[in-house]
């Protein structure tokens, strides 16, 4: 665990108190409500949580991709090597977008321009940011496609997106995002739209490239199996907030938030306890038009207490190196003991 601790100290990206809302006809949606996290050099941070909990909005805010209006970043900072990158005008943002931070998306089929060759779309990035000539940029594009294991890269570079399969397109997206050797790659559900067998290949490619390119990865997913395979650290998001964050082992084996527990119990396990019944989390997340004053999980939580309804919990730090925290009153020293959940004072498993 020690090199992970070192990585944690060397923070490339720090997000602090991020708040994002959307003005809609129905009112103002508070999509992200005070999110804090950081990404260390070379590590993979997974963000998990139910649909609509604000995962995409969080990372798109960092990239300046939130449509404004209706969206608005109302508070917070995102610091890339110490410099705030939130709410920058396009001209400033384009100094880091595609250069320092690359991004790939859920649906590779629609994420590439249908009337431009794959090669041209990759070389465009190089021409804009690295001022390469068209010939040099095209050659580099082929090399990048090769690097992402696209067979016959040269021929493929001259083809259009509709001539590619989904998996191949996601490889091309990865190649494109790597063009300027970014230090952070944001992947928003990169495998959700792909076949299971292809999913594994793409994830493998990503972890491999992470090592060779020395990148940090922010990986959004709702698949805990993907988290287990890829992540160093995990942020569990619920209703626009991070409710628990920690090293991957802490999240899986010392889950300290009832919602994390719920996610785990809803996950099909592919190993020995196949017979075990899956229990989906009952109910639905709170309405983000008027978020509850207390804990967002109150209505669904099996351990809910009186206090939870009216007052939000603070982030209780659970491990000595402060990597693990839970935003739940059960971590309060005076809270009742609960079976199964990791609570402050419990013995660490490792």
């Amino acid at each position, binding site marked *: 665990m020690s090199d992970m601790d070192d990585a944690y100290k060397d923070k490339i990206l720090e997000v602090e108190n991020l708040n994002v809302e959307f003005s809609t006809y129905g009112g103002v949606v508070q999509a992200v409500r005070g999110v804090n996290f950081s990404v260390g050099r070379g590590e993979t941070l997974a963000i998990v949580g139910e649909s609509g909990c604000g995962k995409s909005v969080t990372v798109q805010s960092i990239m300046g991709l939130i449509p404004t209006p209706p969206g608005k970043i109302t508070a917070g900072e995102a610091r890339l090597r110490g410099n705030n990158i939130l709410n920058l005008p396009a001209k400033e943002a384009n100094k880091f977008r595609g250069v320092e931070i690359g*991004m790939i998306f859920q649906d590779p089929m*629609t994420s590439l*321009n249908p*009337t431009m*060759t794959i090669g041209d779309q990759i070389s465009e990035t190089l021409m804009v940011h690295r001022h390469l000539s068209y010939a040099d940029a095209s050659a580099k594009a082929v090399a990048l496609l090769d690097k992402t294991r696209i067979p016959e890269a040269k021929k493929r570079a001259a083809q*259009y997106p*509709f001539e590619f399969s989904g998996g191949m397109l996601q490889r091309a997206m990865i190649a494109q995002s790597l063009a300027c050797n970014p230090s952070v790659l944001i992947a928003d559900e990169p495998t959700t739209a792909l076949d299971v067998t292809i999913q594994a290949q793409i994830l493998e490619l990503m972890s491999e490239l992470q090592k060779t390119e020395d990148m940090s990865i922010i990986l959004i997913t709702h698949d805990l199996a993907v988290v287990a395979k890829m992540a160093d650290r995990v942020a569990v998001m619920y209703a626009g907030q991070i409710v628990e964050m920690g090293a991957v082992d802490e999240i899986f084996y010392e889950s300290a938030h009832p919602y994390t527990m719920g996610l785990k119990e809803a996950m099909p396990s592919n190993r020995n306890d196949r017979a075990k019944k899956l229990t989906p989390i009952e109910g639905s997340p709170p309405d983000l038009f008027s978020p509850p004053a207390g804990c967002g999980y109150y209505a669904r939580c099996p351990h809910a207490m009186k206090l939870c309804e009216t007052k939000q919990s603070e982030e209780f730090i659970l491990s000595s190196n402060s990597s693990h925290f839970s935003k739940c009153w059960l971590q309060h020293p005076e809270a009742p003991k609960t079976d199964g959940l990791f609570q402050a004072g419990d013995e660490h498993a490792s």
Partner: protein
Amino acid sequence: MLAYTLKRLLAGIVTVWFIATATFTAMHMVPGDPLMNDKAVSAEIRANLERKYGLDKSAPEQYVIFMKNMLSGDFGISFTQQNRQVNDIIRDHFPVSATLGIMAIFFATIGGVLWGALTALYRNRLPDIIIMFLVILGISVPSFVFAALGQLLLVNINSLFGASIIPVAGWGTFSHMLMPSMVLGLGTMALLTRLMRSSMLEIVNEDYIRTARAKGLSPSRIFFRHQLRNAILPVITVLGPQIAAITTGGFVVELVFAIPGLGRYFVQAVQQLDYTVIMGTTVFYGAFLVLMVILVDILYGFIDPRVRLS
């Protein structure tokens, strides 16, 4: 692409044949015939004339003769204009109509794409609101009204300068052509503006535009390289039918501006039931339009790789 083009050409030939047959049938079902206009022809002269033009033969026979002649590119002689070849009429007057039409289409397409892109950029702000109001006018007001207004404008300009700066009617020089082609293209331009606007607004929300922003491209590069080309596609698809609309609209504009185009002969021929001229001009126009639609399809394929390569 070659197979695609050949297929389209073949379908085009069938279409033209269908147009020819339909016109032939329709004409023989209309009461009266071209000789009715020559008052007081004696039965004998009439019989002679009928023999000369082949009108004494049965309809199927006439159809076969007509088809045969058409295939050899001969549309026959006009009934009403002393022995003038239909081919000559087309040759003399079609270039005028074609010039007018092409200028109108050119004007409409450039204008439609530019205005459409502009309104999308200024969505819901003043330029957008003004242009979209004009677009509604352009779509709903018929072209002869614009033709008259256009002439009025030219008269005013000329009287302001005290000289004939821009001719109000007639044909010959480039300045003759400006106003009629603008008037003729106006409706189409309005339509294309609206189409281009909605197409641009739709594409702003496409995933690949988000990708382009995530790549760190400048807004102008995204606009020109990613948005515009994709937004033009739906505009091109309606260009074929719009060429047809402009061609038929041309008949009216030619009349108002006293332009010696083919449209005038076409209208005259219908009034006088001049069989050969009707047949000739209809088939010719039909073939021309079919060709235009095919050309537009090929152009589409040129811009959209999905069509070109599959």
